[in-house]
C-alpha cells in the first residue's frame, strides 16, 4: 500500500496509451448523451471547419481519468479524486480507417501541505498536446 505522502514534486507516475476508433465515439455519445454530429459524421465535422471527425473533449478527459484511476488501484492508494480540470487545447482527429491514439503521461505537480497530491497530466494525440493543461488532485 502506498500513501499520497510517498510522492513528491517531479515524480514520474505513469504513461498510458489508448487506441481509439469511430465506434468508441458512437458508444461514448450514447452513454453521455452528447450527440453532436461532429463526433460521428465526417460531413458534419467538415461543415464545422474541422479536418475530420473529432473525439469529444470529454471522451479524452474520461480516458485520462481512467488512466489516473487505474494507477491509483495499481499502486494501492486509498484516495479519491477531489478535483479534475482540463483545457481542450487541440482536437483529437479520428480518421475512419486508422483511428487515433491518446497518450497520457502523469507527473507529480505538488504535494500540498494538507496532504493532497496534485498530478500534472500531459495528454497527446500524434504530435499534438490535446489536453493542456490537465490536472488531477487526489485526497
Amino acid at each position, binding site marked *: 500500500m502506498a500513501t499520497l505522502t510517498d510522492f513528491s514534486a517531479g515524480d514520474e507516475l505513469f504513461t498510458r496509451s*489508448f487506441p481509439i476508433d469511430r465506434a*468508441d465515439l458512437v*458508444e*461514448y455519445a*450514447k*452513454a*453521455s*448523451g*452528447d450527440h453532436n454530429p461532429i463526433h460521428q459524421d465526417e460531413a458534419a465535422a467538415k461543415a*464545422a*471547419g474541422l479536418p475530420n471527425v473529432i473525439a*469529444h*473533449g*470529454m*471522451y479524452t*478527459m*474520461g*480516458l485520462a*481519468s*481512467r488512466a*489516473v*484511476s487505474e494507477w491509483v488501484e495499481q499502486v494501492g492508494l486509498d484516495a*479519491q*479524486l*477531489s*478535483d*479534475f*480540470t*482540463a*483545457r*481542450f487545447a487541440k482536437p483529437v482527429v479520428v480518421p475512419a480507417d486508422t483511428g487515433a491514439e491518446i497518450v497520457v503521461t502523469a507527473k507529480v505537480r505538488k504535494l500540498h501541505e494538507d496532504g493532497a497530491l496534485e498530478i500534472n497530466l500531459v495528454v497527446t494525440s500524434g504530435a499534438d498536446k490535446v489536453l493542456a493543461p490537465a490536472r488531477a488532485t487526489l485526497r
Partner: protein
Amino acid sequence: MLNPSYVGRSLPATQPVTITAQSVAAFARSLGFADESTPPPTYLISLTLPASNSLVDDPDFGLDFTRVLHREQRFNYLRPVEIGHSLTCTVTVESIKTVAGNELLSLRTDVAEEGKSGDEAQVAKVWTTLFVAGDAAMEGK
C-alpha cells in the same frame, strides 16, 4: 453575440435525476473502466450538459451552438456520486469574455442531492467553459 446581462444569473434547479446502475455501467463501459458500478470521475457531465439546455435554447441569450467548442472543464467533488442518489443541477452564468472577436462563456453547475439542505446537500461543483466563434473565425473556416 451573447447577452451580457445574463452574467450572474442562475437557471432554476433542474428536476432531480436519479442515478441508475444502468446509466453508470454504460458510461463506465464506454470509457473502458473495469468497475462498472462506480460512477467514473467525469460521469456528472451527463447531467450538467443537459442542465444548460434552457439557456442554449433561450433566444434572448443569443448562443449559437453551431459555433461552440468545448474549451475547459473542471470538476470539484465534495463527496462521491453514488448509484441511487437523486441529484439536481443549478446552472449559473459566471462570466462572458470577449477575446479577439470570439467569446468565452463560463458556466458553473452546482450539483446537489435532493432532500438535503445546505452544505450537506452539495455533491460537486462543475465548471464548463465554451468557446463561441465570432464572425471572423466563422468566415475563416
